[in-house]
């Protein structure tokens, strides 16, 4: 009986943690692509999320500099990026540090919210 109860408790903990992880899943990720003398940053939205193009995502670097993301392809209503917006920073880096801000909208929710990610 004790084994059954222990198993049940473990299942509950696992389900709860999985659910929590899903709730906390980030809608955005930044990919760094080093080039010759710079780094191209690509802002990728998770499935089900759109990035607001009316207020361009910003990366606030530790130096205080602000880098804005942009992309030429927008949705037909010009409200969202139709491709991952990119930004360029000087120097080759494998990972980037700073504070990312982006306005995102979840498909079907009809609201906007700000996501702030510490990179």
């Amino acid at each position, binding site marked *: *009986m004790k084994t059954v*109860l222990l198993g*049940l408790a473990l299942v509950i903990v696992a389900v709860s943690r999985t659910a929590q992880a899903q*709730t906390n899943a980030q809608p955005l990720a930044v990919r760094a692509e080093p080039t010759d003398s710079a780094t191209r940053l690509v802002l990728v939205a998770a499935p089900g999320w759109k990035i607001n193009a*009316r207020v361009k995502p910003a990366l606030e670097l530790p130096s205080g500099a602000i880098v804005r993301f942009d992309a030429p392809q927008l949705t037909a209503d010009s409200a969202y990026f139709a491709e991952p917006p990119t930004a360029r920073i000087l120097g080759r880096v494998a990972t980037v540090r700073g504070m990312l*801000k982006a*306005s995102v909208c979840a498909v079907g929710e009809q*609201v*906007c919210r*700000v996501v702030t990610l510490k990179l």
Partner: protein
Amino acid sequence: MPRPSLLFTLSLVLAVAVAAVSQHAGGALAQTPLLGQTRIGVGPAPSWHNTSWLNTDQPVTLESLRGRVVLLNFWVFTCYNCTNTVPSLVDLDSKYRERGLTIIGIHTPEFPPYAGEHDKGNVARALEKYHIKYPNAQDNDSRTWDLYGIRFWPSFVLIDKKGRIRYEGAGEFHLGDATYQLWDGRIQELLSEQ
């Protein structure tokens, strides 16, 4: 017949299970406000103290609106869902202003000042572009946003003639759609009250 200690353990496990599931359900609901989702009968409306206003000669206070129905619209001109909803608000303003409705836009920026959302000229241009005639407060420090516990753009708070919050909700809606009809009905309901 199970032993008392076993019953206690089973109850404990069940309680943990229920708590875990309900906590997750609450969190998920808070994370995903659906179109037209509302809270009803929330309590007294807190007073806002915004100092920068557009479409009005002087700051509009909650106290000065006692006896009128007030619809607060938390928005920002860079939010597509917000500007899509503006035609409905302009329509409600023209339909019910004379009957006692005051719509107030609370313009709360999403981004720091470098994005231009804090600029009064930009807000003024947006009001003109979207034909907004009702008063708008600049909420550049998000104080009123925080005061009302708002989390999403656009959000709505409907206050009755006695200064009580009666309905809250978030999400884009359009002229004549189901959510528009919902808000229209609520406004009529509060206007009909003494």
